[in-house]
């Protein structure tokens, strides 16, 4: 099991943070383009899923998977979106994504008055804590691809 990469978006579609671990093949388009496509896809899935829902939606969509990878999605009522791509062996990781939001993003970015909101996170502390947190996850393994 392994973690491929992680995106953090805000309500306006700005990519606040991106990091990757075991991502062997790149998309072949500029990163900015990739963020836009990712956000656009999430936005469409989200609105479509809520249209199709037989009852009022609660949490929206949580994950989807292809034959190669699984995309996990977590969204707060303020529109912060945490997206993590892993391989197929990883189960539901809502608590992990919630932890990234509450213990890392809120603590180190939102509560830091020197970090402006709504643009790419510059905080080195946030990056390094996030990196060590992801590396410490039980399903993070250096070997797998």
């Amino acid at each position, binding site marked *: 099991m392994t973690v491929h990469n992680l995106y953090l978006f805000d309500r306006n579609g700005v990519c606040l943070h991106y990091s990757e671990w075991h991502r062997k093949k790149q998309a072949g388009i500029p990163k900015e383009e990739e963020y836009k496509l990712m956000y656009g896809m999430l936005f469409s899935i989200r609105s479509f899923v809520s249209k199709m829902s037989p009852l009022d939606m*609660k949490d929206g969509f949580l994950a989807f998977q292809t034959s190669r990878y699984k995309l996990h999605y977590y969204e707060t009522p303020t529109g912060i979106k945490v997206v993590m791509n892993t391989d197929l062996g990883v189960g539901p990781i809502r608590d992990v994504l919630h932890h990234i939001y509450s213990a890392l993003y809120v603590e180190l970015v939102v509560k830091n008055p020197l970090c402006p909101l709504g643009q790419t996170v510059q905080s080195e502390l946030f990056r390094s804590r996030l990196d060590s947190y992801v590396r410490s996850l039980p399903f993070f393994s250096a070997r797998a691809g």
Partner: protein
Amino acid sequence: MSRQANRGTESKKMSSELFTLTYGALVTQLCKDYENDEDVNKQLDKILFSNFLPRGFNIGVRLIEDFLARSNVGRCHDFRETADVIAKVAFKMYLGITPSITNWSPAGDEFSLILENNPLVDFVELPDNHSSLIYSNLLCGVLRGALEMVQMAVEAKFVQDTLKGDGVTEIRMRFIRRIEDNLPAGEE
């Protein structure tokens, strides 16, 4: 607002007197910086897009994230639920009081928060030359900022204030509209 880096069930306590006095210092400084009470009221409430001047609205914008991270409250389905969460969870968490919710308008888009005792004004008496100062106006800004982040445009204002001789403090909240998410420009 009594906590900083601490999380989980154990929350760090801070002297409420220190908090009250700090808030007093902020208002006093604003009264020195601005000519008249109207401007101070505005400053307490207002949107200031500077990161170094986090008054009401800006506090709300950030505080809501902390609130969601710690309370695990999901999206509210209607304004009544929102009112409940504000009074019973948010005020309790940050000010240690639970205002009562009354005076719903027939359409259900306006209500009042009644604060029996407002911790911000524990040691406060308004001097005569500041008779139009809305001392706790920061709260309105916080409410507005926080709700705007969860896609609700609201109006919040003080209609009664113990500092002005009223029996209770009353904040009137009015729902204006839902803010819809839009795709950023240049995408389809």
